[in-house]
């Protein structure tokens, strides 16, 4: 997993509420393609018309935002299906940071497993950011994980919250599996006790 320290670049606005993971990536694309091959299929229902041509005014198709590493979104971004491919699809577009008022819970957890930072800020702040990016287009936003701030092009840093465990995992490039390895003896002991306490759980 790629460590995430600082990300700097344009921020693309998709401010609709409740953008779900089905819309981010259709389920069959995840069976047909590897996690690095999803760029053409990310948001395909919105990026392309029935003939497969790009819909020019869709934000992700606008030249100044095509390689934006930061996505600005409405509340409850990434709701719905648990598919981790939604994060892979964003990564294939080059997006490493999503800033929204709130996130689908499974999506948020999946971000942390893939070096992607979900930042929850108030709806007012995200709307402000969207106004800035719509006016200044390629003007870079800067996200500093260590300092826990987003610095919009006008220069006033906005602090954000992140759990220590998640911050550490992202900055070291470790997913949960990397963090749990040292717990294995404790798990074995817990299971041994549980066999006596709840024998009906054990299927073998």
């Amino acid at each position: 997993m790629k460590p995430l320290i600082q990300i700097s670049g344009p921020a693309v606005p998709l401010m609709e509420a409740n953008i779900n993971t089905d819309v981010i990536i259709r389920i069959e694309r995840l069976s047909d393609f590897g996690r690095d091959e999803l760029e053409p299929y990310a948001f395909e229902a919105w990026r392309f018309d029935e003939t497969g041509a790009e819909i020019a005014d869709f934000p992700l198709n606008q030249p100044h935002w095509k390689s934006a590493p930061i996505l600005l979104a409405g509340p409850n971004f990434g709701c719905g299906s648990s598919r981790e491919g939604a994060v892979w699809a964003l990564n294939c577009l080059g997006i490493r940071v999503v800033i929204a008022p709130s996130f689908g819970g499974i999506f948020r957890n999946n971000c942390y497993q893939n070096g992607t930072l979900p930042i929850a800020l108030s709806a007012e702040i995200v709307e402000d950011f969207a106004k800035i990016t719509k006016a200044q287009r390629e003007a870079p936003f800067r996200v500093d994980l260590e300092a826990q701030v987003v610095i919009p092009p006008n220069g006033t840093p906005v602090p954000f919250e992140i759990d220590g465990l998640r911050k550490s995992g992202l900055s070291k490039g470790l997913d949960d599996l990397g963090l749990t390895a040292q717990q294995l003896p404790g798990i074995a002991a817990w299971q041994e006790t549980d066999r006596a306490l709840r024998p009906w759980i054990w299927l073998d």
Partner: protein
Amino acid sequence: MSDQARTLFDKVWDDHVVAEMGHGYQLLHVDRNLLHDLSGGKALADLERRGLSVHTPALNIAVPDHAVSSAPGRHAASTEISARLAPIFKQRAEAAGIRYIDVNDPEQGIVHVIGPELGLTLPGTLICCGDSHTSTHGALGAVAFGIGSTELLHVLATQTIVQKKPQRMRVTFEGRAGAGVAPKDMILYLMGAIGAAGGDGYALEYAGSAIRTLDIEGRLTICNMSIECGAKMGMIAPDDVTYHYLAGREHAPKGELFETARRHWETLPTDPDAEFDREVTLDMVDIAPQITWGTSPEHVTSISDQVPDPAQATPEKREDWARALDYIGLTPGQAFEDVAVDHVFIGSCTNSRISDLRAAAAIAHGRKVPEGTSAWVVPGSQAVKRQAEAEGLDAIFRMAGFEWREPGCSQCVAANGEVVAPGARCVSTTNRNFVGRQGPRARTHLVSPAMAAAAAVTGRITDVRKLGGAQ
């Protein structure tokens, strides 16, 4: 509140803490990990690539459901995608010592249907699956939630998962269901009441007289859609209905062990003084048969209402409503019952159990799907299919012009290629009316099984209360 007073959720969650991971995160034991065909084989391959093996194979179970065909006479390779996924899934699961329920095994079915059916889902267990509708299993008093692919690797490698404890919300349904009102209508109504993000950060417990009187299948429907309001999970306290349901099921404890387990399960319900972070109370009097009109489960209203006008929405939702109506092809102020239906789908982990099929068959009986409308019934499992056939429900559906098909997820997620045609309007007993969910540009209306059957036999959206029972 006394210091000891705890909720059902707290009791089950706390019972599974293996270690504190710092920063409020806990390492939790996973009692049941359910694998399905879309992610199961890949996860097992990824595990091997990372040089790891399955930690506790006996607590994992594997079943193909998402990618399999629902066509009569199907086999593992009947769809192109299943042909690719199923052999690897089976081979890797079996090599890892995980029980694999094959596509035409008598126990095959949708993972969230067979878990309870086989007695794998038990009160007080912690259950994970790489599927968001894992919340279904909470109906028996389990902590059950969906996880992503990397988290799934973690569960396979350690039989544990790292999570932060959500807050507690109780949703109380009081009163008696009115005519034509099904469990699906209760949960759809909740989506409208609190919104698609209303449950974000919460574990829900459903309570109240209208929940207590529900059978397990109705409770499964309600817990199933908890994720649609963003909740981490949905739970219902175990009671005599639960114990009666579980007794004699394949993997449920037997004899003396059942009684021992039951004594433990009886300690799980929420203590009278326990507090919730949020309480929502709904009166059954307000709940009529529901239908979604847009592209989020929160876009829902009573069948007797008209298609809403974005002008009535709060300012920040106006654009969202307008876009949803544009996609779904409805006009503000239009009556739902004017709207012609191309296709009806009865199935999915939400509504494919025997009680769902009975409710749909009661409406289909003696009626006929008109020209220009098609209708599918996809039972949730082989056991549901056998039971339905024993009761003659398949004959009722066939006589009425429905297709009677094989168990799986089918058109709920269309991962097997069984898509609803572009632009077609589908009245569906599933859980998501998202843009393109049932196929590119397909339009979905979520309803109860009886409402779906009513739409099928009239060829238009119909208030099931106007059809009464069987004809």
